[in-house]
């Protein structure tokens, strides 16, 4: 008996019990579409997180002051120290000692209350220097960024993110306007272009950036002229490791520390963050896939159940076929093809429905990351569903093939 003949028999058999076949297929269909959709969502989340981190700049290093030690040697919390200075920044940016570093900028800030007219907005304040846009991948939508002259002069100028512009000025042009930052007048000279990474983590569009000198003088009163973080731009994403080594050496020298394990600072590269995020989202995807996989197994058991019923129902037919010359393998093939056809068709429909849901669901639930469905996962889902038909069809088909013809013929 050829496979084609078996396929014809299978379709014939399935059509004779349409409702039952459809319901059985539904089990696999739901399983496969759940796998497609949930793995897609997992991948989508992974892509979204990576894009967000990438938008910070993949060649970015962040230097934090490490745990401050009180005189008794008691360690305090992460980033509580105040060991970094503006001179450290200048030393790091020196191309002589650190050839893999493009430039470095200091950062100091906190939350700030912004007021314009009768509008209020609470935003994230950053004091920094003129190289901030290039290091942090910010583009200007309008106006300009402050210059080194304005940093040296501690000018009361500010550049705001698009979220701030929308909430404070609601459509009006903010350039040239004077707003209050923590009750101090600052003139707005520029607005950033959106970075397109709203939702999750810190909103990079909800920022206000001022010269670090102005922040020290007017806004961060009482905390001294310390630098909370140094952002270092490496020449490329690949050069971050070399740049980390160079920055470590420069800072160890400047801080007169000979033992690297006692360093009063820590360096975090964006690559590290990216890697840890990737492994986190990888686990998420795996977990979603596993949950969906369970429903696929349940669907497979449904197929086995129905195939067992079918074999019992068709005992007499099996007897007739054996009497007129069907061999074991003919009967085995017939029922295997039937169960594989059932699961394969269910799988194919499940892929279509999974695709459809992946398109529709993000429209209905806006917080859902856009599912990313990879071609291999589609082929894999189809392959697995056919495999499930094979695996769960094997027992019933074998049972049919082993029926003895006289007993099968006598069956009523």
């Amino acid at each position, binding site marked *: *008996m050829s496979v084609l003949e078996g396929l014809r028999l299978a379709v014939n058999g399935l059509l004779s019990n349409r409702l039952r076949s459809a319901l059985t297929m539904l089990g696999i269909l739901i399983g496969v579409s759940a796998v497609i959709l949930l793995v897609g969502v997992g991948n989508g989340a992974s892509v979204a997180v990576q894009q967000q981190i990438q938008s910070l700049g993949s060649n970015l290093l962040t230097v934090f002051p490490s745990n401050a030690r009180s005189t008794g040697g008691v360690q305090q919390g992460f980033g509580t120290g105040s060991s970094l200075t503006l001179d450290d920044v200048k030393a790091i940016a020196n191309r002589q000692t650190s050839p893999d570093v493009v430039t470095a900028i200091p950062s100091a800030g906190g939350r700030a209350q912004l007021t314009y007219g009768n509008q209020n907005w609470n935003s994230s304040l950053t004091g920094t220097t003129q190289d901030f846009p290039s290091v942090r991948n910010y583009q200007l939508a309008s106006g300009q960024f402050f210059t080194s002259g304005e940093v040296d002069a501690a000018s009361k100028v500010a550049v705001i993110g698009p979220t701030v512009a929308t909430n404070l000025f609601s459509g009006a042009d903010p350039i040239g306007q004077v707003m209050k930052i923590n009750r101090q007048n600052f003139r707005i000279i520029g607005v950033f272009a959106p970075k397109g990474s709203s939702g999750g983590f810190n909103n990079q569009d909800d920022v206000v950036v001022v010269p670090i000198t102005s922040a020290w003088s007017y806004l961060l009163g009482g905390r001294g002229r310390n630098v909370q973080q140094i952002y270092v731009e490496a020449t490329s994403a690949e050069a971050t490791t070399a740049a980390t080594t160079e920055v470590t050496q420069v800072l160890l020298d400047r801080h007169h520390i000979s033992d690297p394990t006692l360093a009063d600072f820590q360096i975090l590269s964006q690559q590290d963050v990216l890697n840890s995020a990737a492994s986190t989202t990888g686990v998420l995807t795996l977990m979603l896939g596993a949950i969906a996989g369970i429903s696929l197994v349940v669907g497979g058991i449904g197929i086995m159940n129905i195939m067992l019923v079918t074999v019992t129902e068709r005992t007499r037919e099996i007897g*007739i076929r*054996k*009497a*007129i*010359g069907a*061999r*074991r393998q003919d009967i085995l093939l017939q029922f295997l093809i039937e169960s594989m056809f059932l699961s394969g068709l269910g799988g194919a429909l499940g892929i279509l429905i999974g695709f459809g849901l992946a398109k529709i669901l993000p429209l209905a639930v806006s917080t859902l990351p856009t599912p990313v469905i990879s071609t291999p996962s589609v082929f894999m889902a189809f392959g697995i569903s056919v495999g499930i038909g094979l695996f769960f069809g094997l027992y019933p088909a074998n049972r049919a093939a082993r029926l003895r013809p*006289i007993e099968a*013929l006598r069956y009523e």
Partner: protein
Amino acid sequence: MITLEGITKVYRTGEVEVPALKGVSLHIPEGEFIAIMGPSGSGKSTLMNVIGCLDQPSAGRYILDGYDVSALSDDQLAWIRNRKIGFVFQSYNLIPRASAVHNVEMPLIYAGDNQQRRERAMAALESVGLLERAGHLPNELSGGQQQRVAVARALVTDPAILLADEPTGNLDSESSLEIMKLLRDLNQQGRTIVLITHEPDIAAFAQRVVRLRDGVIVSDERSAVTTEMAR
């Protein structure tokens, strides 16, 4: 054509051994129309299963068309059933979801014989006079017609013997006559036919009648005389 030598068959029901055939020897030459008769429990169904290669004898030798069938595997028996034996059952045993012509061509499918499959099936249907019903499902046919489809299915592989197990058991007398005349015609064309029945009227169509009782042959006679009905 068929040689049975000392065939015994013992069924085992738990601890008890029930002998169904106690040493049956029989020779059926080619072209013979033989009827095997006997009351229920005489072992005729068991004999039919053995002759039809649906069951293996417990002991004895069975030679069918030159093949020693007593020692074949399941798949080899399937091949023998497919090529050498055509079955006609009391309850027709057609596959309900398949059309008449598809039922008839089914043995050819298992024979792996794809050459002019449909044509040969149609020819077999024509020989039983059911060409115009080829596309009908079994439940759209009368009992007599269904049995004729079954005869066509039995003939399509051109088997060595036609094995008919109470072929008229479910039919009215008119249809019974039709089927028996069909079998007689086939025999006259040279086909070996083994008929199993308990009705003397039906057995009268055969040239030779073997009577079975309690698992042994009690009589084996050639009848030159045929009944009124058979004529």
